[in-house]
């Protein structure tokens, strides 16, 4: 992984310093660390980082300033990777992020996930590489909606679908389930067929298709009807 230039936005000093130390330890460079949305936008203009890691809630209003700043940046800097950290899962926030700039290079994670340092840094790197990372909790909620075609999936296929929706590649899914990559490919082909999704060779396009399907967005079969 090349050394990433990261802009951090988090109003809690303790956490900001901690995150900076963590990223530094894994060989990435924190070029700017700020405490509110306006400062983040200024920092991105000045340092042009590879990725922005931002807390949803920041001063002055302590509502969703971080998220708004992230969306503004996505609009003004197409291709800028953004990882948003939230204290708890809000489908609305996840949806707004996924709808920005095609949903590539976007991440939405619970703040808790920082604790699993290796996975967290892995998520930062994947987002910086233009992939999509969605918190397992978001995916769990999406899957629990039990839309009719989902019930046709086997338990194993549902497991695979969940991991794919989180933004994992075939290889990562295979590692997580301790099966061969070929087995994963077979499961995925089955899932795509059952859900009436177009087969896609590219891992990432498939992730986006699955997410769109789960969220019931245009592109998912229910909307096309």
């Amino acid at each position, binding site marked *: 992984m090349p050394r990433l230039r990261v802009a951090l936005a988090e109003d*809690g000093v*303790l*956490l900001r310093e*901690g*995150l900076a*130390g*963590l990223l530094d*330890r894994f060989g990435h460079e924190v070029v700017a660390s700020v405490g509110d949305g306006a400062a983040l936008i200024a920092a991105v203009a000045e340092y042009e980082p590879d990725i922005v890691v931002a807390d949803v*809630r920041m001063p002055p209003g*302590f*509502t*969703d300033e971080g998220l708004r700043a992230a969306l503004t940046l996505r609009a003004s800097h197409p291709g800028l990777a953004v990882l948003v950290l939230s*204290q*708890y899962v*809000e*489908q*609305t*926030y996840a949806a707004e992020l996924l709808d920005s700039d095609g949903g590539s290079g976007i991440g939405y994670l*619970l*703040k*808790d996930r*920082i*604790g*699993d*340092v*290796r996975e967290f840094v892995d998520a930062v790197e994947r987002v910086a590489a233009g992939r999509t990372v969605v918190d397992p909790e978001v995916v769990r*909620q*999406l899957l*629990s*909606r*039990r*839309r009719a075609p989902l019930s046709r999936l086997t338990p194993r296929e549902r497991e695979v679908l969940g991991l794919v929706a989180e933004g994992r590649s075939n290889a990562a899914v295979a590692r997580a389930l301790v099966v061969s990559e070929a087995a994963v490919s077979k499961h995925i082909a089955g899932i795509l067929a059952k859900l009436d999704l177009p087969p896609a060779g590219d891992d990432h396009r498939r992730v986006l298709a699955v997410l769109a399907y789960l969220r019931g967005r245009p592109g998912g079969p229910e909307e096309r009807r």
Partner: protein
Amino acid sequence: MLAPTALAAVTRRPSAFLRSSWPWRSLAYLLGSAIHAVAACVAIYAAYAYGVGVAAGGALLALAVLSLPAAAFERWRLRLVDRAPVDDPHVRPPRPGPRAWLATRLREQATWRELGFTVIAVSVMWWMDLGFVSSAIWLPLMLLSAPFQPSLHLVESLPLIAAGLLLSPLFAYMMTAWAGTRALLVRAVLAPRDAEIIRSRARLVDAFEVERRRIERDLHDGAQQRLVALSMKLGLARLDLPPGSPAEAQLAEAHEEAGRALAELRELIRGVHPQVLTDRGLGAAVRDVAGRSPVPVDVDVSLPGRLPPSIEVTAYYVVSEAMANLAKHSGARRGFVRARLRDGALVLEVGDDGVGGADPAAGSGLAGLADRVAVTEGLMTLSSPPGGPTSLRVEIPCPVSG
């Protein structure tokens, strides 16, 4: 303890009631209607002496001028039979001066209620009041005075005295009951209290909500942040230890414990105050709650923008509680939430295809919901026959700008 009103005193122990001041207070209260009697007699006399036209004109003029003082007098004497504070329903004119005063009074509902009440008090109510007093006093008094009647023998009068003695407490009850009833009427028309109570309850609910937000923010800025930092430190420390070593195993356990504490804290914070409601409004918050429900729920919320915060919060609690009941008790396979703004009210409907039988009296959160809705002067109706389906409908008056 002294009863709060004459009407409440009537149901106390008879010995306590009869020795209390309530019968006498009621007597004094009803005798106050003599003023109305005098006014009515003057009007009738004027009609005979100066003709009906003059009398009617004079009566109208007197009504216009005197109905406000008359109402003030009614409120003043209400204290005799109702110990609760009596508030003046009139608002203070915005500017000093007679013009502003007159403009304010003419536009007030209270003024017209007072006018109407005075008309009824002068035309009808006074003879009811005095009729109750006279019948309560004269009959016992006649019976008790039997020995002094020249036509009656002393022995013959004894049963009459006994009857008088027996009847006077009964008539004291009758008089007090009428005085208390009349006071209820006066209270309802001239010094309505319910509106004020509801307003103060609403203020209390708002204050609670502000407090909950503060707690939520404190938890978010304090405990939660420290826990995340702790969990991160533990995660980093694990990297430095050889995997599988005893120390690493201990640390892993501590790390997982920190993760569980974070998850619990997260749920707690969400329960205290849902941030998405403040940020994105009712629609998003409802979709969020419904999205977490284990039972699939169709959400159909169509609102023209944001509603006043207190209404959003109330509606949100209604939906969360309904979702919790749906998941726990309904056995439903599908639910729905609909919200619309119709005729100046937020209409919220939540339903499912479950087994029904939801009962607000059974100690579920439904009773609390009804209270909460009542504070917003809203209405909650629940239909949940055994066998289902269940549907909950809440209407909350909602002023919408633009």
